[in-house]
């Protein structure tokens, strides 16, 4: 699949439930082969966007394409998709094997061998009734059903809720493997470490609008670095009163022997600025995605 092909394309998608306008003109273009993280606080419209993409909810306006196929042509478009949600409900009265055999019958080809391999990797027993499995194991069956037919696109809505840390790592490996084979992933998640580890690009949604689209690399570069300076009390005071002379440098906090500043801008200018100060030690740390995320949502600015 050509890297420039759109795996998912949403153009001016609106969705309201009664008077509550949940999606307000969403535009997204997810390229084939990328892992796209879809982030936002609860109620921002992440799950609604996913459900509109899957045609579970019908959009009021706009159009949606999956690999150039309208999302309402279910048989064609959904055969390319694997879907997993944290709230996915499976047939509790079937065993894992019976359920996966049914899923297998939905697609052209026999993918049961894939399902068995995935079941071994995820260490889940397929001979038990789904209703008697733990949430985590039910989620594993859901993940197998999403991956077994070798889809081109994975749509994941908070996929690792219920997974223990070991299985979370296995999940990350499976997704990385999927990407290496050319697969595209669209995932919403609250686990930012997971997004940071997996995603090429992230989109932020707030109150039904996309407020930012960046690669993880760009986001980190544009985000404030955390600068911690250790110095004597007097020197710290001087830095505190003079820090505004360098654009992009912000005061965050201070203690007896150190001060924390935030900086966004050219790192050379920062080092030049700091070299003129009398300091004992310094650390400059990259912001974690969750810090950027919180920063973004508390400020509400466009990224």
């Amino acid at each position, binding site marked *: 699949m050509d890297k420039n092909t759109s795996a998912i394309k949403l153009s001016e998608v609106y969705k309201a*439930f009664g008077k509550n306008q949940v999606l307000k003109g969403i535009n997204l273009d997810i390229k084939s082969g990328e892992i796209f993280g879809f982030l936002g606080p609860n109620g921002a419209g992440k*799950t609604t966007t996913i*459900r509109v993409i*899957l*045609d*579970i*909810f*019908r959009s009021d306006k706009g159009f949606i394409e999956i690999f150039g196929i309208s999302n309402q042509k*279910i*048989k064609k478009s*959904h*055969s390319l*998709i694997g*879907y997993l*949600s944290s*709230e*996915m*409900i*499976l*047939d509790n*009265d*079937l065993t894992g094997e*019976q359920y996966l*055999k*049914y*899923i297998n*019958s*939905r*697609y052209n080809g026999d993918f049961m061998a894939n399902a068995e391999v995935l079941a071994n990797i995820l260490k889940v027993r397929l001979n038990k009734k789904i209703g008697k499995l733990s949430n985590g194991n039910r989620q594993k069956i859901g993940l197998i059903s999403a991956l077994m037919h070798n889809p081109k696109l994975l749509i994941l809505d908070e996929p690792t809720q219920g997974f223990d840390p070991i299985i979370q790592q296995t999940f990350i490996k499976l997704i990385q493997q999927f990407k290496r084979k050319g697969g595209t992933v669209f995932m919403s998640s609250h686990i930012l470490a997971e997004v940071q580890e997996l995603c090429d690009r992230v989109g932020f949604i707030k109150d039904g609008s996309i407020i930012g689209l960046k690669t993880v690399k760009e986001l980190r570069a544009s985000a404030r670095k955390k600068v911690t300076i250790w110095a004597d009390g007097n020197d710290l005071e001087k830095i505190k009163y003079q820090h505004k002379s360098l654009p992009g440098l912000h005061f965050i906090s201070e203690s007896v022997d150190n001060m924390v500043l935030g900086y966004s801008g050219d790192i050379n200018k920062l080092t030049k600025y700091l070299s003129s100060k009398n300091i004992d030690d310094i650390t400059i740390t990259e912001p974690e995605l969750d810090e950027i995320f919180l920063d973004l949502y508390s400020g509400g600015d466009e990224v």
Partner: protein
Amino acid sequence: MRTMATKILFQKKMLIFWWFLGIFTITTFTMYFFPVFKNGTLSSSIASLPLSLQKLLGDKASWTTVGGYISQQIFALRAPLEISVLSIFIFNSLTTGDERKGLLETQLSLTNGRTRILINKLIAGIFIVGIVTSAVLAGVILGDILIHYHYSYIKTLIITTNCLLLVLDFGLVAFLVGCMTGRNGVAVGIASIYAFGSYLVSSMAGTVSSLKFIDNFSLFHYYQNLATFDLGNLIVMCGFGLFCIVMGMLFFSLRDIRTSS
């Protein structure tokens, strides 16, 4: 389990078994008591009752002839109402039940379009109600054998088919409302009120003249618990069912699915 319909049938196999067994047993027992009523004093007492009461309980022929007994005591009320309960329950469970549990969302995330999902559910529902209704036929036949009376199997099959159409139509009311609203209580409520209301109106319309017009909207008015097919009634019954199916599909294709969260 190659299709959703076969998966549903597999999942509902115990329900089908127990309902079949229940209806079969009740029908066989009802048949088994025919000689007691025929030879007892009940039939002569019935003849002395007012016509309106005879409409409810059955006239003398319905207690003294095997054909009348099957028609009145099995197919007039008992079988249609018992199987209507199942029919409403099953069509509701397949539509709003799956939607309420969140299963419909999972089904729609696969390669199943909305129309295809509904067609599969319809096929499964019709098949389940059909199998359970056939328990009446089987019960009548076994009852005939046990009491050493014979009533034409073809005639019994014709009445059973009429009964099947009636109970399917009540189930399809639940299907239509379920497809329109996705709401469990509303679908069961409206279908049940319509089924029981239909029976009440049609059973009383013979004696209460003011109910005669309303009776035209009752499915029991078009239901024949007799061993004949009336083309006009068949058209109404089949047309009503088709209307529910088409409208259900139309509404279902336009609305949002209710999700688990």
